[in-house]
């Protein structure tokens, strides 16, 4: 085991797969010589050269469109969209082209394509650079949606995404880039579509994703210490495919469930999971399903305003304590 940062794990995941398969190419803005705006691609251009690691113009539609054309013709591209907010600039390519091609062609098209993107808040970048948009992607049939919370998951799930025959949007939470964690030595490939129970508990299940996972874990420790509440924390890891089996078994065990989402409240992923829980195990529940979310308001850049919006460990602690009591 080596201790890596989340951003180093991105580099290791890409490098591992580029060494293994020469069909893997990487394109995006500032990813090569500059090493990425978040320094999450440092060294790749030096190792693999400018044929396979290509700095692109600031042309999100052409980046994803060309990546799609390349994926249809024998390559396995990784395309970076620098901030997930910019997916809106090229959403046609994502939702009308990439997501639908396998289906509309009756399964004739493989699209082994990964869209990596820096998602979410915490860096005070304001409303056009801080959104958590994993729920947009979740709504579109035909793409897979992954959002890791730890360096080990970054490396393992990114490798799995690159090997996947389907398009995957890989949401990296930008506030997590500097966080550290143990990553298995040697080749590390995880499985997309498996949630992880990262804390076992008996009284309530907290479902979280990406940045919300460490915050849920911190809240769970305080709930135990200060309120005697034993909380399970499930890291969802992948919204599509969604590991309903792990989620439902935890919910049934604890009979109480809280979702913690960074995306704005309306049509956030927690609403979909709440709906599944209500359909599948309503009678196992001892309390109404609770959703903790960012409010349905554009994000602000001022520290105190952003902090007031995105769910914090304090807010998770307070909400769960009140609801469970």
């Amino acid at each position, binding site marked *: 085991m080596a201790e890596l940062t989340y951003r180093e794990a991105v580099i290791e995941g890409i490098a591992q797969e580029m060494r293994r398969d020469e069909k893997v*190419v990487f394109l995006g803005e500032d990813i090569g010589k500059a090493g990425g705006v978040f320094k999450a691609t440092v060294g790749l251009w030096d190792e693999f050269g400018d044929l396979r690691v290509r700095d692109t113009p600031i042309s999100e539609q052409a980046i994803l469109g060309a990546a799609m*054309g*390349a994926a249809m013709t024998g390559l396995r591209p990784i395309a970076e969209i620098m901030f997930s907010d910019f997916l809106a600039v090229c959403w046609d390519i994502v939702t009308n082209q990439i997501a639908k091609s396998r289906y*509309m062609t*009756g399964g004739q098209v493989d699209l082994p394509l990964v869209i990596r993107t820096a998602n979410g808040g915490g860096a005070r970048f304001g409303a056009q650079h801080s959104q958590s948009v994993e729920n947009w992607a979740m709504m579109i049939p035909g793409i897979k949606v992954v959002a890791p919370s730890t360096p080990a998951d970054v490396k393992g799930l990114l490798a799995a995404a690159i090997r996947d025959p*389907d398009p995957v949007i890989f949401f990296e939470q930008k506030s997590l880039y500097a966080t550290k964690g143990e990553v298995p030595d040697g080749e590390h490939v995880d499985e997309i579509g498996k949630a992880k129970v990262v804390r076992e508990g008996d009284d309530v299940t907290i479902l979280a994703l990406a940045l919300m996972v460490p915050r849920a874990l911190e809240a769970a420790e305080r709930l135990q210490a200060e309120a005697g509440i034993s909380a399970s924390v499930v890291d969802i890891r992948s919204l599509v495919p969604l590991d309903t089996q792990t989620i439902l078994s935890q919910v049934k065990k604890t009979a109480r469930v809280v979702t913690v989402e960074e995306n704005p409240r309306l049509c956030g992923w927690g609403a979909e999971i709440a709906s599944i829980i209500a359909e599948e195990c309503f009678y196992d529940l001892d309390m109404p399903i609770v959703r903790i979310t960012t409010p349905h308001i554009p994000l602000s850049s001022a520290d105190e305003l952003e902090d007031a919006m995105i769910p914090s460990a304090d807010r998770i602690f307070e909400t769960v304590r009140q609801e469970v009591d």
Partner: protein
Amino acid sequence: MLTKDKLLEFYRGMVTIRAFEEEVRKMHNAGLAPGLVHLYSGQEAVGVGACAALNSDDYIASHHRGHGHCIAKGSELDRLFAEIIGRRSGYGMGRGGSMHIYDPATFNLGTNGIVGGSVPLATGAALSAKLRGTGQVAVSFFGDGVLNQGILFESLNMAALWSLPVVFVCENNGYGEFTEIDDVTAGRPYAKRGEAFDIPSEKADGMDVLAVHEAVSKAVTRARNGDGPSFLIFDTYRYSGHHVGDKQEYKDDEERELWLSRDPIPKLADMLVAGKKIKQAELDELDAKIKVTVIAAANQAKKMPEPDADDLARHIYAA
């Protein structure tokens, strides 16, 4: 100098597309083809002249008026009809329809329902060919409406910057949907859009299959030699309006007559007969044979099984 066989291949290609589209019109009018169908009739010289300049493993990416490109690149007529009328044996199991026909056997990246959709796809296929070192070329067919889409500029820049083996083929039929393209487009001549990126750019007669073939051949040679992209505009005309059922009240008779007088099929026929390469009677015989083949393919498609709703959830993701 093109051989008689090559010229007859052009002729056969254009007549096949014209006959195919007539059958599509009938199918649509009979309620067999769901949604809207956009016929290629009138534009045959572009698709045929361009595809004849390609190798079988060169890529094309097409648009919503794309049946002609599929035929010119070699797709099977019965499976094309089948897709257009929503049958299980169609190229997309009946799911894609007219605007989403993909055929890997002919290196066709598909017709496309989004204006400009073909442009970055062909650019990416060209990037892939270049990185894999295969010598393949990619052609993007798109309509005049794309002259005003941002994706064109992003892709032209990328293709020029990376010297990609791609040929951008704009088919200017004068109308974007129901609006004259000149009413909504600045910057003339439109070939300047390519020149802005230092891409060799040329306008040619899209009603003359030989002119199209010559321009595309030059561009393909340039691409295959590693000299990068080209941008070509062919002036052409769509006889049937935007889609079957479009009454075309925005056109006058004079305009229609003018373009009909420039029809690429009789133009090539006249040239062949005047050059004593073939007799008119032989061409008439060929026309009749093609019609029989096309009608047989249409009838074959109509007999193909309907799609099965039990299959609806297949192929969203790899198995």
